[in-house]
């Protein structure tokens, strides 16, 4: 018999998240994630262009259902994500620590992430009221403008804020009915995959959020250029990176959302204008008569 103290722990396999499933990268490639001591923490999926393509297909497929889900339901699901994260917060703290953060800072980040989820859960059925309008046109028509989700959003999550930064960019997109494909922080990818597991357990329909790990340099062009992606969000990089993204985004007049200067820990980094950035304004006219 083996005593509990000598039990061999079961290591976690970090996979990617596409269409509500956790496959390995189709490329079969991996990259070793090391801690500051140079020890391998995990073999991460080295996500490929094809993984990205499959993710966009999944996100597009999920879009009609998710964008027409009620605001109340989306709010409840956001809240559910927070609940799940709260329940697993130790795991996320441990992962952050494993990737070099102090325990105190890690704990703070996880708590802030949970609170951010609650913040946006509350916005789900309110941002529309803030940003919509009934327009007093001169003719005999009823005219109103409402927000609708832009569509499929590709998100290059912040490199330095691997959990809070990711959630701060993903949630405003999906609370507004978009679906998304996310590239996790390259140097700290663990929480992204674990967050996918949280999403999976939180009634988020498959395909609404797809999360890849891998190398930014390899995938950024895909994120910017894919013709079935309607908006691209990026949080890092110099002017050259920004220029490349914007140039490639022009192929299908993608909305380009740059959030490079944000400090995701700050309270001002949460606001409904971030939701609005991945929304379209739709104006509807109808005659008033009999």
């Amino acid at each position, binding site marked *: 018999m083996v005593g509990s103290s000598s039990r061999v722990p079961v290591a976690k396999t970090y996979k990617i998240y596409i269409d509500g499933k956790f496959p390995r990268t189709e490329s079969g490639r991996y990259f070793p994630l090391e801690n500051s001591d140079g020890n391998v923490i995990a073999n991460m999926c080295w996500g490929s262009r094809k993984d990205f393509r499959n993710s966009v297909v999944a996100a597009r497929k999920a879009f009609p259902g998710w964008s027409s889900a009620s605001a109340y339901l989306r709010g409840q699901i956001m809240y559910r994500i927070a609940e799940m994260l709260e329940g697993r917060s130790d795991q996320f703290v441990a992962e952050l620590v494993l990737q070099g953060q102090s325990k105190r800072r890690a704990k703070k980040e996880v708590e802030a992430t949970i609170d951010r989820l609650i913040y946006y859960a509350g916005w789900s059925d309110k941002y529309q009221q803030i940003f919509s309008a009934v327009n007093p046109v001169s003719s*005999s028509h009823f005219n109103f403008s409402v927000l609708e989700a832009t569509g499929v959003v590709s998100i290059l999550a912040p490199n330095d804020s691997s959990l809070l930064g990711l959630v701060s960019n993903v949630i405003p997109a999906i609370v507004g009915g978009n679906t998304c494909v996310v590239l996790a922080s390259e140097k700290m990818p663990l929480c992204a995959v674990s967050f996918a597991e949280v999403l999976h357990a939180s009634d988020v329909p498959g395909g609404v959020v797809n999360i890849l790990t891998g190398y930014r340099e390899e995938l950024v062009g895909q994120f910017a250029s894919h013709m079935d992606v309607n908006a691209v969000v990026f949080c890092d990089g110099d002017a050259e990176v920004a220029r490349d993204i914007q140039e490639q985004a022009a192929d299908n007049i993608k909305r380009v959302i740059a959030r490079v200067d944000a400090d995701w820990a700050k309270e001002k980094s949460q606001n409904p204008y971030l939701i609005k950035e991945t929304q379209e304004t739709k104006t509807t006219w109808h005659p008033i008569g009999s």
Partner: protein
Amino acid sequence: MSLAAVKATGRMPDLSHVPLVDEVGVKERAARFQTRSIKKASKIEALHMVLSMIDLTTLEGQDTPGKVKQLCQKAIHLHDALPGLPHVAAICVYPTMVGVAKKALGNNDINVASVATAFPSGMAPRQIKLEETRIAVDDGADEIDMVISRGAFLQGEYGFVFDEIAAIKEACGDAHLKVILETGELGTLDRVRRASVLAMHAGADFIKTSTGKIQPAATLPVTLVMLQAIRDYFYETGRMVGMKPAGGISSSKLAIHYLVMLRETLGNAWMTPEWYRFGASSLANDVLMQLQKQATGVYQSADYFSKD
């Protein structure tokens, strides 16, 4: 003027298939006709056409043979100072005045139209309406302007309304039947359209907007809806039905815009007194003043045109 009487289709139409009408769209289209600018030769031609399409009307409780005779005189001599004028299409009077009008008009090729069927309310038993119609026809009326039973129509008693029109049509014999919908009491353009279809299928030779006793009377939007019903009926059956807007058309400019609407909705085949009439009492003089102005270049005063 020869008016070939046409048999009714005798078939009660399925009103659930009548096209729907959007009020705002109709008003926009009607307003667009009013942006047409009719000038010079086309204006003079239009004014002549308007005169030739007028049913010169007196429908007052105080009407007397003397009044009717004066109106007939006006019908024959619109404004003798202007040569080459057409005469109006008809004189429109109450049944008791048909004989007077017939005699006063002599053989001047101007029809006598008589309102009938307990005009303007239509609130009388059917036998009375039929008898009134027969008397008017017997007295020489060439045309009968009946009113539909709006109460029955609004109650949804479409069969009743249909049968009544068909019965009056039969009582008309060779006289032409104009069916007044009294659109001002129907409430919606959808009902105007349905009533138009009902009347045409029941045998109307003309459909007419109004008695002139209820406001609103004829309007461009209401008339447009009726013209569109006539067009669809024509395509469906091959039969032409005439149109008569009545009440509230007193200026030449407005009358010309009615003609613009007619031309662009039904085309030129309808642009004769055989297929289009204006029910009006004061329109003729305004047209005459306009024609005089066109002839002389000088704006006119009503004092120079006879009021009968």
